[in-house]
């Protein structure tokens, strides 16, 4: 069986409210996959299901060909890491302490702290450039630094799959780019499979190697962003009229929303 993360025929529901029905989603191994869609289209829910944080009402999530809910949770945690949305660090915790807590699935009663843990924590802090902040309390950091520290926590988990639920929300544009640059770097250098729910379609186009566009709990398009993103898709997914041009920096699709009333007149 090949390694991979895949949802098959997923029906996802919260307290009886069905968010998605019979959804198939495949995360290509080695990709940087971005999941995009309008608010409440089910993109975060899909991510939670892939991370076994919610149990699908029907269907299965397969991790390396096995049903994820049949695998011991600690074993899953050594394969799939997740940075949830809107995390809050415990009071007075330092960056280093936070990152070290990412080693939980590698530890046990008899194996409390090892050289391997040490190295993983150092490597994660180096990769996210929070080494200089190690002794600082997380609550004193800027938004971007704080998100980098949390990212380091997830990286220290040393999982081949890293899932990120809206990692750039609440950050200003410079910090958004900083975090996404870092994600791209991790994807290229460390060869991890990244899956990020992103708000900004232009960011998704620029950074992702694979795009999953969702609307009303279903996947409406998936593939290389350069191939799948056009004005028709944006209108379908976001209900937004726009022009899609080439990003002068990266050559990827760039969505430019139409001005009110102008789009119809200009045709």
């Amino acid at each position: 069986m090949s390694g991979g993360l895949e949802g098959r025929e997923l029906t996802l529901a919260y307290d009886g409210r069905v968010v998605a029905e019979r959804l198939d989603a495949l995360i290509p191994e080695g990709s940087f996959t971005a999941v995009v869609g309008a608010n409440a289209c089910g993109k975060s829910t899909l991510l939670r299901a892939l991370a076994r944080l919610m149990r699908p009402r029907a269907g299965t999530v397969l991790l390396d060909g096995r049903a994820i809910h049949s695998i011991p949770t600690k074993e899953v945690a050594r394969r799939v890491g997740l940075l949830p949305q809107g995390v809050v660090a415990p009071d007075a915790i330092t960056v280093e302490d936070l990152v070290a807590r990412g080693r939980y699935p590698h530890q046990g009663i008899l194996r409390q702290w090892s050289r391997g843990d040490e190295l993983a924590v150092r490597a994660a802090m180096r990769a996210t450039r929070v080494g200089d902040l190690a002794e600082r309390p997380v609550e004193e950091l800027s938004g971007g630094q704080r998100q980098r520290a949390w990212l380091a926590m997830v990286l220290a988990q040393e999982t081949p799959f890293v899932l990120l639920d809206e990692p750039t929300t609440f950050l200003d544009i410079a910090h958004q780019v900083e975090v996404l640059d870092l994600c791209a770097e991790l994807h290229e250098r460390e060869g991890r499979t990244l899956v990020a729910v992103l708000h900004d379609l232009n960011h998704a186009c620029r950074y992702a190697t694979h795009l999953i566009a969702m609307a009303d709990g279903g996947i409406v398009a998936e593939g290389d962003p350069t191939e799948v993103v056009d004005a028709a898709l944006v209108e379908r997914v976001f209900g937004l009229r726009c022009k899609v041009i080439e990003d002068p920096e990266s050559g990827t699709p760039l969505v430019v929303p139409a001005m009110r009333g102008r789009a119809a007149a200009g045709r």
Partner: protein
Amino acid sequence: MTAALRIPPRSVGVGLALSATLLALLVVSVGTGEFEIPPGDVVAALAGQGDRSTEFVVETLRLPRALTGALVGAALGIGGAIFQSVTRNPLGSPDIVGFMQGAAAGAVLEIVVLGGGAFAIAAGSVVGGVGAAALVYVLAYRGGVTGYRLVLVGIGISAMLIAVTDYLLTRSTLDQALAAQVWLTGSLNGRGWEHVRPVAAGLAVLLPVAALLARPLRTLELGDDAARALGVPVERARLALIAVAVALTAIATASAGPIVFVALAAPQIARRLTRVAGPGVGCAALTGAVLLVGADFLSQRLFGDVQLPVGVVTGVAGGAYLAWLLAHEWRRGAG
């Protein structure tokens, strides 16, 4: 750095300093009273080298009281540390969220309505405390328990239980009311070896369990989703932690009455001393022991011949601390 991630050296130092303080407090409080014994003689008596009358005073009269204080304080310190960490809230302490009030209601019910002896009163308090905890957990449960909901439901249940206790007191005779009031204040007066043994046995069982659960607890502090993603069975771990904390609080309350403030303050004081985030179970236990033995020492000496129950001292200190805590949290916008 390796050491910093296992047990920070500062925590080891704080732990040793607290242990030394506790030992000194024990020796001093065993040595003072109507019959003064110099510290050297206390130590000699403990080692079996003292004269017979000194040994009698030390080992039969004063040591059990001091030890009960230390063990009850430690149990409350750990119970408070676990609770505040599970609820992610410094107010999530057993003496705020209804368990002690449940224990009080149970004990007073036993005293006023059922008329049981000392053992029955202790049993009534355990049943009341555990019952209140179960009620708060069930009412706060909605596909899982979040800290804030637990604290709010707990405060509500706590208020109702205080009303139950007050109602029972209005139905009681003067003697019953007096007995109930002594119990309700929380006291270490007249504690003997029969009080030391159950708390010691309870701690011997529950302390290792608490230590085993400390790692999942530290991970739970990152929030439910992050903890689940890291491989913690969140609801199961939380239920086990609450059970341990409730058991510790129940044993402590059965031995000394509902002593407030120690469970609330010990973990916070320990955290400020060690400067480490998270539930330092060991240091919280030691801080709780120091606080209670210290408070008992003061309650016996402050007003000359008038001996106050220790609960009065912790109550006054606790009220001031709670006011400060609320003001502080309020200002941070977390209240």
